[in-house]
């Protein structure tokens, strides 16, 4: 690229002094901007620059605020203001003028105005509201340039709340005759989709039209939206797979206009976008993947020009090939491709090669063996970025045999690295693999010591957390536990005796906890000595209050014997009058317990370690206290959001701008109703408050300032509390992830000697890549997210309390066969099914004709309109594919078969086992029924089934252990599902591990359920509704389509919602209707509907923040189908 830009700053002075030079005319050096820039370049010191710019800003301020400035001068001034801001000086006085310029200027001034607005303000700036009308006006302009500018601004930054105001206009632009406008409109909608997916939910079929647009540019733009939507819900767009493949084929074979070429490669950006889409669609889906094989092969073949862009495409291709259902031919080619990357002399390619290798190594550990020498070289690469990427790769191939070498390399890097973010990240990884593969206690404790010292206080809080958990829960063998603890105690004592100033706070907290809990194990260690060491910590200046409380609590556990008590006493004297309330509390506890040894012995028994403690998150034990206080005339509790709302209500000025131009017109009666919150607080009374409290507790929103230290999410504070001993209850919101131990068996023996001269590297290689080839020891990280992984215990560790309840049991109802599901499609299954068919517009170009043809061909069944793949849809195709007998073997247990339930969906299968599932809607919960059918010729033993979900609480229904499954028979497991956090679609993931003919196997699966499965009617009276309405604060408003074919649109619409979603229509008064529902376990949501012209303005409220949005999504879908 050096041919493009040759001139450098060295040429600057000469250029500036010779205005008459050709080319300098463009520099507009006679202008004021030119003068400013020149002035600045001539200066020598920062101070002078500051003076000059401040002067400039002052004169700008005068200029823009003068009443008779022309828009033209304003534009010129604005450019200078932008320049000053770019230099880092604030010119906020000009913001409002930028908006004015965009509003009032001629086209060209407007352009600068919009540019200035984009640069000055961000999405949340309040002045942006003043821009909405300008944008509205420009969107309606007949001038193309104005429309383009407006669309650009809209996609750059637009306040989320104002989207409904301009959405119809942007939508309209999808039909504009100019492709540039259509393209920009699609991109603007893409932006809307990103920031507020629900708002554009109803135009999904218009996206489909954009995908079929005759202009490839518009089609390309629509792919951004599709990639996003497919990421969110891959099942919903499987029908488009063939179309995407066709498009890619045409692009690859150069059917697009030359305009799209980039360095003679046809439309690379488009290709890459398509490859990304395909890889998501083909993931775990053999049928879809098979359609892609040809075009992927073609892409690999075509990408032969030696240019960065071809490599970019190749990289994306490789990723796709390794993501979709494997094809050995393609895999081989892809592996070769990665090989070329890794050995390339171009450093960028090498980097990408390492990245690709890291990506595929989970599936193909042999590749790491092939490139081991290159990897070793990269480990010593002078470029730190390459080094870092190599460590990432090594992290993925860590196993019990190479862990020490890899950890050593990582720590080496950590000692050099200065970048905080990568330190934190790497420290986490070291902790993770050390915990997982530690060969011995000494090594483990020492490694963790280094982790804590290097990680400092930036370390992720769950590292000390899970380290302590590991120490306290231990392994199977109690002896082993004690050894580990003893070693930790020894190691910490010697640390405390050394240089303590350098130890980070978090490490000190860990140390004090461990010493408090376990120093008694070292019988020859006097507790007074430990206490003295701890007391020394308290005297350090840089100790944080938090650490001090840890130390005090450790002392509380330890103080026995006269000398310790006397030290404790003096510490208490220091802290019992501390300003920090938590600290003071601990000091008082210490004082009390050190004096009363009987009480202390009672509270702090030595072996009460790990019984889980029930925590009443609703704080219901306080109910009596609260009602007493209320009776005595105390004001009822109001949650913070409500208090804020009340405050807002008190202000007379309406803060909701442009209300009239908004399509939504909220009913005034409810608005005024909202202003009497006192009514609510009294009438909703105690019970209402406490449910709300408990719900808040679940979503961890409840703010308890002041008490935070004890109850907050830093769970270990309460854990080490001597009065509580809540070791087990940490982190209730992050259940243990399924282990991703998808060990890929490979037949290669341990690395064979390579004829490489350097002996040292050889050695390193053999220690690094040991165990990769041999079948037994392969342990590769699963794909699940690494932070979640960290919660996992060592392999030998017994399951954490959570896992125990979840796994290892079966309901032995496998014999119950009476209701054949596939012949009996239940109501609930139909309920969620969606179909829309769009007749495509006429097409002109070849591409579109093909694409369109394809769309029709590939979808003999109606086109899935938008989004939601529901279980019933999935089964439909599956049933047709499967032989009949297989299907009929799966049936619900007798007592469930009468209830509304979804169809049985196949989850996954391999040679031995087939998993399928369905969900049953009960009154108070949803039941997930998983069928495990053993299709092999041998029995399945040691079966563990683990099912978890981020948004759902999953608990096993029957507590009997999962038995072995004899050959060709089936077992059924039932899980209770309750909503933890509402989302549009819930996903449950699980893992089944079992043994067949003494071989361990694992399969992973996931299952999706729509929110609607959890929605139940909430039968309340209008009065109750009124009270609840006022009490709830999370609301969403949106206009929906009315069902207009009947007599009474409102009743028809509400009936439809009632029928499809299971809502309860409370009352219909004139043009308004009120509707109520709840999620299974009493999470209510209220809907207020009002007919407004031809639309239905719906206002949803709920105590759960996410619920209104999610429910609205389903309402929209139901109404659109009709």
């Amino acid at each position, binding site marked *: *690229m*050096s041919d*493009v*830009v*040759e*001139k450098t*700053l060295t*040429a600057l002075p000469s*250029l500036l002094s010779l205005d008459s030079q050709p080319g300098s005319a*463009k*520099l*507009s050096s006679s202008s004021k*901007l*030119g003068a400013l820039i020149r002035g600045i370049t001539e200066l020598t010191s920062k101070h002078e620059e500051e003076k000059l710019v401040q002067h400039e800003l002052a004169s700008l301020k005068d200029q823009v605020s003068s009443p008779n400035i022309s828009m033209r001068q304003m534009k*010129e001034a604005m*450019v200078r203001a932008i*320049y000053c801001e*770019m230099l880092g000086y604030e010119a906020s006085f000009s913001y409002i003028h930028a908006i004015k310029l965009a509003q009032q200027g001629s*086209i*060209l001034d407007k352009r600068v105005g919009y*540019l200035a607005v984009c*640069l000055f303000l961000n999405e949340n700036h309040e002045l942006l509201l003043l821009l909405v009308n300008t944008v509205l006006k420009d969107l309606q302009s007949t001038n193309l*340039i104005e429309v*383009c500018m407006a669309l650009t601004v809209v*996609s*750059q*930054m637009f306040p989320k709340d104002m989207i409904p105001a301009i959405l119809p206009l942007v939508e309209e632009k999808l039909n504009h005759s100019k492709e*540039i406008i259509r*393209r*920009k409109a699609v*991109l*603007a909608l*893409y*932006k809307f989709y990103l920031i507020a997916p629900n708002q554009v939910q109803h135009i999904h079929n218009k996206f489909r039209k954009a995908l079929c647009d005759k202009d490839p*540019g518009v089609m390309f*733009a629509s792919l951004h939206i599709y990639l996003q939507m497919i990421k969110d819900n891959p099942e919903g767009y499987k029908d488009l797979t063939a179309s995407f493949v066709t498009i890619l084929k045409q692009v690859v074979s150069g059917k697009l206009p030359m*305009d799209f070429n*980039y360095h003679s490669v046809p*439309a*690379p*950006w488009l290709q*890459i976008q398509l490859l990304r889409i395909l890889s998501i669609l083909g993931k775990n889906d053999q049928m879809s993947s098979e359609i892609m094989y040809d075009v992927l092969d073609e892409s690999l073949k075509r990408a032969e020009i030696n240019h*960065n*862009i071809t*490599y*970019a495409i190749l*990289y*994306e291709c490789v990723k796709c090939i390794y993501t979709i259902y494997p094809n050995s031919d393609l895999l081989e080619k892809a592996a070769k491709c990665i090989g070329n990357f890794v050995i390339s002399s171009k*450093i*960028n390619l090498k*980097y*990408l090669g390492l*990245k690709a290798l890291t990506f595929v190594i989970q599936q193909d550990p042999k590749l790491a063996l092939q490139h081991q020498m290159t990897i070793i070289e990269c480990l010593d690469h*002078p*470029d730190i*970025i390459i080094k*870092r990427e190599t460590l990432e790769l090594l992290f993925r191939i860590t196993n019990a045999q190479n862990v020490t070498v890899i950890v050593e390399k990582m720590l080496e890097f950590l000692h050099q690295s200065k*970048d905080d*973010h*990568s330190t934190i990240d790497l420290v986490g990884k070291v902790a993770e693999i050390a915990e997982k593969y530690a060969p011995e206690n000494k090594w483990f404790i020492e490694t963790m010591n280094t982790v804590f010292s290097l990680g400092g206080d930036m370390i992720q809080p769950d590292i000390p957390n899970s380290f302590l958990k590991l120490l306290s829960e231990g392994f199977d063998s109690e002896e082993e536990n004690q050894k580990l603890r003893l070693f930790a105690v020894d190691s910490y004592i010697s640390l405390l005796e050394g240089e303590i100033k350098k130890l980070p706070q978090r490490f000190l907290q860990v140390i004090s906890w461990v010493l408090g809990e376990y120093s008694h194990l070292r019988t020859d260690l006097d507790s007074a000595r430990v206490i003295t060491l701890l007391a020394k910590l308290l005297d350090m200046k840089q100790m944080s209050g938090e650490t001090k409380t840890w130390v005090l609590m450790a002392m509380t556990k330890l103080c026995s014997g006269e000398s310790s008590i006397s030290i404790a006493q003096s510490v208490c004297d220091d802290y019992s009058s501390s300003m920090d309330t938590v600290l003071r509390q601990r000091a008082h506890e210490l004082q009390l317990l050190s004096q009363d040894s009987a009480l202390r012995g009672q509270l702090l028994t030595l072996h009460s370690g790990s019984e889980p403690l029930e925590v009443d998150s609703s704080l219901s034990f306080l109910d009596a206290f609260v009602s007493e206080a209320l009776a005595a005339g105390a004001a009822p509790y109001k949650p913070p959001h409500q208090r804020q709302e009340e405050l807002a209500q008190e202000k007379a000025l309406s803060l909701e701008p442009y209300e009239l131009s908004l399509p939504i017109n909220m009913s005034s009666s409810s608005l005024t109703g909202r202003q009497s919150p006192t009514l609510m607080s009294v009438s909703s009374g105690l019970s209402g408050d406490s449910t709300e409290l408990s719900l808040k507790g679940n979503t961890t929103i409840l703010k308890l300032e002041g008490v935070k230290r004890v109850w907050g999410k830093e769970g270990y504070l309460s854990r080490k509390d001597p009065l509580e001993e809540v070791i087990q209850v940490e982190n209730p919101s992050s259940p243990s992830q399924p282990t991703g131990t998808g060990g890929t068996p490979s037949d290669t023996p341990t690395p064979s000697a390579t004829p490489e001269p350097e002996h040292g590297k050889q050695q390193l290689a053999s220690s690094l890549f040991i165990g990769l080839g041999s079948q037994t020891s392969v342990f590769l990280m699963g794909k699940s997210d690494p932070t979640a992984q960290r919660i996992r215990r060592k392999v030998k560790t017994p399951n954490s309390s959570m896992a125990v309840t979840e796994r290892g049991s079966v309901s032995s109802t496998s014999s119950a066969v009476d209701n054949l599901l596939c012949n009996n499609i239940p109501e609930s299954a139909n309920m969620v099914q969606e179909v829309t068919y769009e007749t495509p517009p006429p097409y002109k170009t070849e591409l579109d004709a093909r694409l369109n043809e394809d769309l029709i061909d590939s979808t003999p069944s109606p086109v899935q309109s938008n989004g939601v793949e529901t279980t019933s849809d999935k089964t439909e195709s599956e049933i047709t594919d499967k032989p009949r007998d297989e299907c009929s073997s799966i049936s619900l247990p007798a007592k469930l078969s009468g209830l509304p339930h979804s169809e049985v969906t196949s989850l996954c299968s391999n040679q031995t086992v087939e998993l399928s599932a369905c969900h049953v809607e009960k009154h108070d919960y949803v039941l997930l029924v998983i069928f495990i059918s053993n299709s092999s010729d041998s029995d399945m033993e040691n079966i563990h089934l683990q099912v978890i979900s981020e948004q759902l609480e999953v608990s096993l229904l029957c507590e009997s252990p999962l038995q072995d499954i004899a050959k060709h028979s089936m077992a059924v497991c039932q899980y209770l599902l309750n909503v933890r956090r509402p989302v549009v679609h819930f996903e449950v993931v699980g893992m089944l591990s079992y043994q067949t003919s003494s071989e361990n196997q694992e399969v992973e699966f996931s299952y999706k359920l729509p929110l609607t499965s959890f929605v139940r009617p909430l039968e309340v009276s209008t009065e109750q509704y009124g009270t609840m309405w006022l009490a709830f604060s999370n609301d969403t408003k949106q206009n929906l389509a009315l069902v207009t074919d009947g007599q009474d649109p409102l009743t028809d619409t509400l009936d439809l919602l009632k029928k499809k979603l299971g809502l309860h229509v409370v009352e219909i008064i004139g043009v308004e209707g009120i509707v109520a529902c709840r999620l299974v376990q009493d999470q209510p949501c209220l809907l207020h509907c009002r007919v407004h012209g031809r639309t239905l303005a719906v206002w949803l409220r709920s105590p759960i923040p996410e619920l209104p949005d999610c429910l609205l999504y389903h309402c929209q879908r139901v109404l659109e189908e009709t």
Partner: protein
Amino acid sequence: MRFLLLFSRQGKLRLQKWYTPLTEREKKKIIRDMTTMVLARQPRSCNFLHWKDLKIIYKRYASLYFCLGVESQENELLALEVIHRYVELLDKYFGNVCELDIIFNFEKAYFILDEFLMGGEVQETSKQTINRCIENSDMLQETMEEYMSKPAF
């Protein structure tokens, strides 16, 4: 894409474009971090960096550094080509572009960028088309200016 920064070898900012909302303070921090990190890179190192959870792709063209921040799962080589195409676009418009062109006509550089990238995604890759767009508006500017018969600033 999250942001695009252009700065000189001396670390002077020449152009900034943000595709996600950030506060002034965050922006300042990013600019400071980027200039120090990128300028400290040795020659013949790779063109990629990690910054927090983002990937930074940078490239030097004569005295100017182009620095693009993208999500970490993005394709780095492709991002590099995004930068390259932008340079080509600038070159086509200014005709053998140099840093001075961008300093004195930074608003033009922004307009070109807006035609190329929209909302953080590649919108149009054709040099011809983008150039046509910009020139159309410029033409308009010239006729307007003639009409108003005032000297250009």
